[in-house]
């Protein structure tokens, strides 16, 4: 699929997000994590790249999400792995808010 073929898809209403926290959302077969972060709304794949636990059950401080299983750490703004044992960055999805809905570009 070329970038031109991608389209914005509604994911979840902003009002339904856990305020200041991570919210798990399913889009088709994809498990996504929506972060209501200090710097805005960010969306990533929900599974930790190290142990495959669902990051939405981890500790979120507004910028960094910590895996609930092994405490690997990711920056939700760019998906970068910030502390071991996580090494592989999170896959992020382009996200925006339109008319009160979080949308992702897929």
């Amino acid at each position, binding site marked *: 699929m070329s970038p031109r073929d991608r389209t914005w898809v509604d994911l979840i209403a902003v009002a339904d997000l*856990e305020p200041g*926290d991570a919210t798990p959302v399913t889009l088709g077969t994809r*498990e996504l994590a929506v972060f209501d972060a200090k710097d805005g709304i960010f969306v990533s794949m929900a*599974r930790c*790249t*190290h*142990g*495959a*636990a*669902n990051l*939405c*059950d*981890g*500790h*979120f*401080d507004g910028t960094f999400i*910590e895996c*609930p*299983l*092994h*405490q690997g*750490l990711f920056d939700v703004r760019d998906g970068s792995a910030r*502390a*071991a*044992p996580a*090494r*592989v960055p999170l896959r992020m999805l382009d996200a925006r808010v339109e008319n009160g809905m979080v949308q992702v570009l897929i």
Partner: protein
Amino acid sequence: MAQDVRTPITQAMQEGALTRRELKALMVRSDRPALIRVAGFGLALAVTSGLIWLAWESWLIWPAMFLQGVLIVHLFSLQHECVHYTAFKTRRLNDVFGNLCGYAIILPFQQFRYEHCNHHTYTQLKGRDPELIELPISVWTYLWYISSVPYWRNKFSQIARNASGRLNDEDRSFLSRHEAPVIIREARLMVAFYAVVLLVAVAMGWTWPLWFWILPLFLGEPVMRAIRLTEHVGRPNVDDMKENTRTSLVTRPMQFLCWNMNYHAEHHYAASVPFHALPALHEKLRGYVYVEKRGYLGAHLDILAQLVGRKPRSDAPKPAG
């Protein structure tokens, strides 16, 4: 990438044991509770050090050193909390205290961290949980484990192996090529540190590290081994957190010493919940985890009952059908 896993806390939330908002409130990090507890430990160590000093020329130095040792070995509990980055608010402070405790009790921090990751992933599963303590085959092997001789033998050989850069198959089960150099460097630093301490002590004619630190550590370790036995030993070797881990209800002084790690099943359910919130998590998970109401003593009675045949062994094969 690893296969998707359902962590115990995910399972607990899906089954309605607690909500995400309740979990988030429990996961809040703070320096204050840990700093208060560290100060308490410092005070207690000052008292027991004073007892050793007062008993210097007497046989009473041995019970005094034992008391000091009981405190020193419980630095493991702080190190364990630091491994999970839950003792303090910042990762840096957890790393600092985790390493300090590691040097005090001869347990490399990063090595323990990586090993402990697999312990949480594969709790009580034979051949996969690197921290699994097998249910002893007899009362004698139970006492032999508590003596700490097997523990120290394993610990020293592990540090020597890591320092020489020769990892074995078990090490490789929880260390990738990225992590192996970290723990090899860590072991070398640790060996160098103890060598320097030894050289300085000999050069200066100091014996106090022996009487205030090393001998108490060895005298106290059986207490920690006995506590570690209560966490999983005698529970089934199954992939079910409701069954494979034991919470023991203990006195407040004991809770202080062990940093609330008696709430062990709750800790395994949500390792991101700091020690100071475990009593609250215990209330939330009441009826959801296995609890030994008689405390550590009750856990040992349970284990011993299995060893002498009064109770079926937890590791006995289940009858077919």
